[in-house]
């Protein structure tokens, strides 16, 4: 299998605080990777470095064969990295459809009828078609989460990073979102999932990486990760 994302020796500091120290991570084309770790362990910081929200880190990030370390977030989106946000960030003055047309316009360069049809297809796949022309500040929490994923899809990514897309959702809603992510993966999209809901991560991931205090403490299959003493210590204490 081909490596699509390669994070090498990434160090990110906020003033005197080291949020990530020497992180190395390889993700394979088409892989479903789970990223776990206690609060404050650096998961979102790592995602911010990969998606380009931060560019002032040491180390290098290669994506799809190219060094993207110095690229800004919008350039990385164009290369094929899309993400959803931990706290949904809808374009709240726009309808759901218009939210999707932003990436269509700026990544694909067009937002005509063809793109609207495509956007509708994406919404259909997420079960949001009936909300297409509703203003996005009227959506429920689960609908917002789905719209974030739909908007990420509209950028036609090769790698989708889902940052706690299931936080605050009910059991059945978690299953709905999981199904969507499985569906996207079947289309060939590599997915990194950050999640606190363990059943979801374990069910979804082929491989799980656990961060603690800015370091990757272990990685492996979901089964081995839950039994790993270091992971148990990170989550439960000694």
């Amino acid at each position, binding site marked *: 299998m081909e490596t699509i994302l390669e994070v090498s020796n990434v160090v990110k500091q906020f003033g005197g605080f080291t949020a990530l120290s020497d992180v190395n991570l390889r993700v394979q084309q088409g892989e479903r990777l789970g990223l776990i770790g206690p609060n404050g362990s650096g998961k979102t910081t790592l995602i911010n470095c990969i*998606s380009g929200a931060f560019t002032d880190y040491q180390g290098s990030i290669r994506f799809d064969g190219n060094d993207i370390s110095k690229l800004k977030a919008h350039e990385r989106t164009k290369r094929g990295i899309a993400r959803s946000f931990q706290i949904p960030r809808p374009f709240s003055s726009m309808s759901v459809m218009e939210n999707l047309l932003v990436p269509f316009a700026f990544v694909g360069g067009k937002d005509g009828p063809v793109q609207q049809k495509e956007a509708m297809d994406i919404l259909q796949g997420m079960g949001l078609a009936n909300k297409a022309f509703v203003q996005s500040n009227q959506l429920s929490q689960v609908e917002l989460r789905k719209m974030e994923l739909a908007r990420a899809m509209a950028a036609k990514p090769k790698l989708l990073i889902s940052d706690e897309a299931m936080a605050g959702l009910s059991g059945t809603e978690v299953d709905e979102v999981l199904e969507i992510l499985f569906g996207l993966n079947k289309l060939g999209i590599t997915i990194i999932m950050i999640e606190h809901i363990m059943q979801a991560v374990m069910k979804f991931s082929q491989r799980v990486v656990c961060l603690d205090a800015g370091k990757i403490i272990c990685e492996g299959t979901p089964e081995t990760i839950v039994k790993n003493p270091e992971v148990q210590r990170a989550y439960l204490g000694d």
Partner: protein
Amino acid sequence: MTSMKYAAYSSLLLLGLLTLSIMSGVNEYFFFAGFVVLQFVVLATAWNILGGYAGYVNFGVPAFIAVGAYTAVVLFKSISAPLLVQIVGGGILAGALGLGVGLLTLKLRGIFFSIATVAVVFILETLVNNWRYVGGATGLQLTRPADLWFFDSYVRMLFFVMAVLAVFSVTVARYVQDSFLGRGLRAVRDSEEAAECSGVPTLKIKLIACTISGALMGIAGAPMPMYLSYIEPLSTFNLSYSIYALGMPIIGGTSHWIGPVIGALLLATLQQIVTVTVSNELNVLIVGVLLVLFVVIAPEGILGLVKKWKQSSK
């Protein structure tokens, strides 16, 4: 409104105003006051391109007006440039100021950007105060050229010129709103992080908006020295311009190009009437009170009220 319809309406409007300005029998004061109203249409429209669409509140409006006005003065004094050259020159330099200020400040968000733009006003005012060639702090008397085209008076001509500039500015704002740029700016206003991650080059489009907005403020300021036959820094760098240029779009509604036009026409006309009938000081109060009322009761301005009314009557 389709582009065809828009073009037809605006041409008709300009033709009407042209006829009005060459008609004899209309009181000269009408044109004197009308110039100011139209100037505010330009300013409010210009402000809204950055402030309304992108949500970046520019308090530095007088700096851009002054760059337009003083560029016109320099061009007039040095090479006796005709009015149109003064306007184009003022627009270009004010646009350049917009780009420069944008490069320095648009990485700042929210209130920090706004404070930085106020600073620009003070910096430029200090410069002009100490620049002898344009009259320094005492100001400069200017003699209007005799060329009136086919108008009866210079004020009538300026009125029509400002009408053309107003239609031009609104056309630019309308174009921006309907283009990719407008979609991107709205995304920036709603969430800058999400905009970046949707492929929007946020810094670049903010810079474009700041440049266009600055240039339009510059062309609004450029005819001022000829209008007053005089220029001096204290009134040119008056921070009230910032309040008006931001108040009018907020009262009219910032989400659509027509909002600032409605706000400016209503407010500036009201101000002109109050200035003549009551007092010059009262018009500042009026804008202040209306602004507070609208922010509290109708944050989406008159446009928002109309939208609500339409929805409830369905």
